[in-house]
């Protein structure tokens, strides 16, 4: 019972708490075939965190966000945002959302677009007038504020979409592929905006297939494939290899030294002054370091071995698909 209580208390403290969420779509003639878009997804996102949701196309990332925003109804499971059940009107006043491939009325200017969607958000005209100008400046569209958005490029529309999502000063921001079509400079600007939001205590839920981008700004990530969560954690946690280390030496080790180290390792690779080791047990690391010191080698650094998020992601997906 206390365990259950603790679990629910944790869910309540989380800004976004997703519990056993599943979604299946019926399709085909007479809706005979069933597509499982999400399977028993449970994720929590804390306040002030940038949370990255990663996955290949069709993994269910967008479906998950749409469920949280009540655009799609879940088949089973629950979720809360800011302690309230997802989908409540009150919650939608406190969140911002940038959908993937969003389409704004093309006959409006950038400024008018923000005014319109701000009004739908329930914001006053007086407040919106200054807020829209401020946000257009933040996303770099100040000079385009009076131009009809049908003349905007994809990248400009993404910037406008971000401004729209920020209109109500949201406590939680859901972004679905926010840098899609944005040039490298624009991407950096968007990343900086997101970092600024994190500093201000806002929570960002980021959907992206751009791994390097997510790796750079996310505090934690979840990897989704075929509707299932394969891994959740900090980038450091999920990219660290268990019992694998890189040791940088001051001088190149001799062959006998390498043989001694090799006897204690599952695998050993050498690259001039760097040894890459996979061990059987953590204690073996101390034994190896002692050998190196006894042999008069200078040790410059010992680091747990990490792979890039991209490598980890690809390996994880491949392993799941071809076990």
């Amino acid at each position, binding site marked *: 019972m206390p365990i259950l209580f603790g679990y629910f208390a944790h869910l309540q403290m989380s800004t976004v708490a997703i519990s056993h969420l599943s979604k299946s779509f019926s399709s085909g003639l007479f809706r005979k075939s069933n597509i499982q878009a999400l399977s028993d997804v449970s994720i929590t996102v804390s306040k002030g965190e940038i949370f990255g949701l990663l996955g290949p196309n069709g993994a269910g990332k967008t479906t998950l966000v749409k469920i949280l925003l009540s655009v*799609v109804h879940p088949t089973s499971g629950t979720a809360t945002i800011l302690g309230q059940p997802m989908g409540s009107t009150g919650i939608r006043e406190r969140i911002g959302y940038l959908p993937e491939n969003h*389409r704004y009325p093309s006959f409006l200017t950038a400024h008018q677009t923000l005014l319109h969607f701000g*009004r739908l958000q329930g914001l006053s005209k007086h407040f919106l007038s200054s807020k829209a100008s401020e946000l257009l400046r933040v996303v770099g569209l100040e000079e385009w504020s009076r131009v009809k958005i049908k003349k905007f490029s994809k990248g400009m529309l993404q910037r406008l979409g971000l401004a729209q999502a920020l209109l109500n000063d949201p406590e939680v921001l859901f972004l679905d592929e926010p840098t899609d079509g944005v040039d490298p400079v624009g991407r950096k600007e968007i990343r900086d905006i997101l970092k600024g939001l994190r500093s201000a205590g806002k929570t960002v839920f980021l959907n992206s297939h751009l791994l390097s981008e997510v790796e750079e700004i996310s505090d934690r990530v979840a990897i989704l494939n075929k509707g299932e969560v394969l891994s959740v954690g900090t980038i450091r946690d999920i990219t660290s290899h268990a019992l694998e280390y890189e040791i940088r030496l001051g001088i190149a080790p001799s062959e006998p030294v390498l043989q001694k180290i090799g006897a204690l390792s599952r695998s050993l690779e050498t690259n001039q002054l760097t040894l890459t080791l996979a061990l059987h047990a953590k204690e073996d690391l101390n034994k190896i370091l002692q050998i190196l010191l006894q042999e008069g080698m200078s040790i410059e650094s010992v680091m747990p071995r990490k792979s890039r998020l991209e490598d980890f992601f690809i390996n994880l997906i491949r392993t799941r698909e071809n076990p």
Partner: protein
Amino acid sequence: MKALSLSLLTIREAILKGTLLFYFIVGNLIILFFAAAVSGSMESGTLTITMFGSQLTPRGLEGFNPVEFLLRQLFQSASSAIMLFGIFATAGLIPSMLEKGTVELYLSKPLSRSSLLLARSFGACGGIGANILYFAVGIWAVFGIKTGIWHGNFLLASVVAIFIFLCYYSVVALTAVITRSTAFSIMIAFVFTLFSSALEVRQTTLYVWWENAFFHRFLDSLYYATPRISRMIDQAANLVGKDITTRVLAEQASAGFDILPFVYSFLSASLLYALAIVYFFRQDY
């Protein structure tokens, strides 16, 4: 306030799509036509209306009001045309809201799905309503200035025409949320118009197809479950003037205003809007 904002944007969208603007121009041309064509004069206590110099008096009728006659004819023709052309201009407004990339934006705002759908529908009807009112006031003013008769009931009938369009639009709203297709919504609305007219005279036409009590009750149910567009237009026209087009004496012509078609149509349109809302609520986007 949020729903009003969406309704206003819908009106704006309808205008900027060009079709409403075209109707506005056509409306102005018709107003100008009547301004140039109609003139009235009093001769020995009797009002005489002329169009392009020709006196307008239906043969065999005495004591009829030519302004009422003209306005009634104009109202009936214009309102029937506006119903059809209005649907053509506004049927795309709900499907465009349901397009991928747009619907997510609207559904993520703190507005219920019912508010969204109704605001969009009322916005569409508002656009058409503004056109109807502008046209009606224009015609009313032309006749008032030219003949000295300010026929207030013509304006009242025009307001009723907006209500009729709102009822008619319920068919589009339901079709649009189900099919998400502009073309299909227009098609169904036009088929409904034909079907609705046939249902009006079902006793003399559809009943004879199959002499079966169940079939007859089924047709009756359909009649009561759907808005009665042509019947309402006839009743609204009665507000403008008596029906004397068949050259019967004015005293014999139907002139009473029957509220029942409006009550039944309001109820059936509410049902169609409710069905559209329920369907909209259940959908994933």
